[in-house]
């Protein structure tokens, strides 16, 4: 029993290690993310607010949009994590994972490190952009609850992405489904607007 738990923990740490190695091996993407994120934020905010340009100075709306964008980064990043299973299949790694009796969710945990780092980077850039370009202060009313809900969201999306990965595994062009879902899910979750408005 104890040996079994030890094996599982070992696998989890191996996957987390793999995730960090994966992230470090693509240094150009780290730089690319830092350059791209502010432009994407500008694009999304202005593409939406063209319908109500007078709200460009409305701090309440802008703050909600910023949090909506954070959730968009979150959902998008984890959907692409699910999509990464295709590369695992194409490179023949999945066969070995199944042979070693490892769960796909455990394997995806490694890739989730990249997603978590991406979301954190996006979040930091979002806070800086909000402050320096839109004169907003994105404050967290209760940091403890924020942390708890982030962990819950992480767990939810980890398992959601695992189910998603299994569903798209036989698909010919899964990137099409991922591209569509990354917009549809936040849209129908009201994460870009305030439901009270």
């Amino acid at each position: 029993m104890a040996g079994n738990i030890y094996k599982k923990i070992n696998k989890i740490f191996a996957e987390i290690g793999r995730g960090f190695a994966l992230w470090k091996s693509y240094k150009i993407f780290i730089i690319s993310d830092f350059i791209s994120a502010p432009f994407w934020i500008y694009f999304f905010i202005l593409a939406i607010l063209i319908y109500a340009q007078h709200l460009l100075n409305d701090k309440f709306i802008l703050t909600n949009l910023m949090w909506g964008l954070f959730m968009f980064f979150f959902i998008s990043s984890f959907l692409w994590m699910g999509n990464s299973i295709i590369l695992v299949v194409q490179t023949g790694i999945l066969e070995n994972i199944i042979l070693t009796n490892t769960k796909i969710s455990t394997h995806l945990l490694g890739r989730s490190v990249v997603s978590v780092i991406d979301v954190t980077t996006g979040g930091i850039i979002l806070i800086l952009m909000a402050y320096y370009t839109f004169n907003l202060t994105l404050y967290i009313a209760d940091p403890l609850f924020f942390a708890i809900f982030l962990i819950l969201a992480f767990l939810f999306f980890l398992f959601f992405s695992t189910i998603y990965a299994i569903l798209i595994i036989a698909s010919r062009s899964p990137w099409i489904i991922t591209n569509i879902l990354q917009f549809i899910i936040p849209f129908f979750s009201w994460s870009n607007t305030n439901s009270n408005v």
Partner: protein
Amino acid sequence: MKRYINQFLAIFSVEMKDLMRQAGQFGFIIFLPFLFSFFTFGIGAGISGSTPSLEIWFYQIIGFTVLTISLIFAESSAGYVREGLLTGRLEYLLASPTHPLIIVIATALFNSIFALSIFFIVGMIATIIVYGVLKILNFILSIFILTLFLLPMLGINLIIAALTIIAKEPAGIVQPINSIIIATSGFVYPITLLPLFLQSLGRSLPFHYAVENVRMTIIEFINLLYLYPLPLLLLYFIAGIVIYRLLEDNFIRKRGTYGW
């Protein structure tokens, strides 16, 4: 000359066959401008609390279509180089007596036809929805305007392709360039909403003029006054060819071969 035509036709037909095998991809790219424009339309309606005007939706769907085309154009040769490097196809192509510029021209022409087909389908539907059949002639004219603006875009495409040969990983280079193009060119909002330095950046690239001229031709009519930057923007095309040749020659001289 016949040899070059044969090389061109061979590459072009391979690209066509590749597209036929992935018809879903074509359908998705047509669907994409609709998805994005309805997405912003829906959120815009939610925020403003009223039904937004269809003219703004039209402004955005044309913008999203030109944006999609620009992105395909910006990274097409880079993607071709990357795929060629991964599969080893590029080595064979370059070892054969195929001229590198023939490869670029063939893929660019294929992408132009691909891009204009997308614009034709999406733009036609959007024009009929918002303006009815009255503006169809204007719309057809706008296709020619867009074709003119594809040339400077091709120059940028060549520069990105050359950078890909050096850096080997196009996504890392293409992503930031794309995000700058997307945010500063005023595809789906007037660039006057941006800070001044970003406006200047947008005005120095051909994409802003492409989308503005296309929209203006459909809504009003062709205005030669607004085409004034075109001769200047063609410098991008010339610069693209020169930079591509320089970087390619320099890389081959140093490494003796393409890629790894």
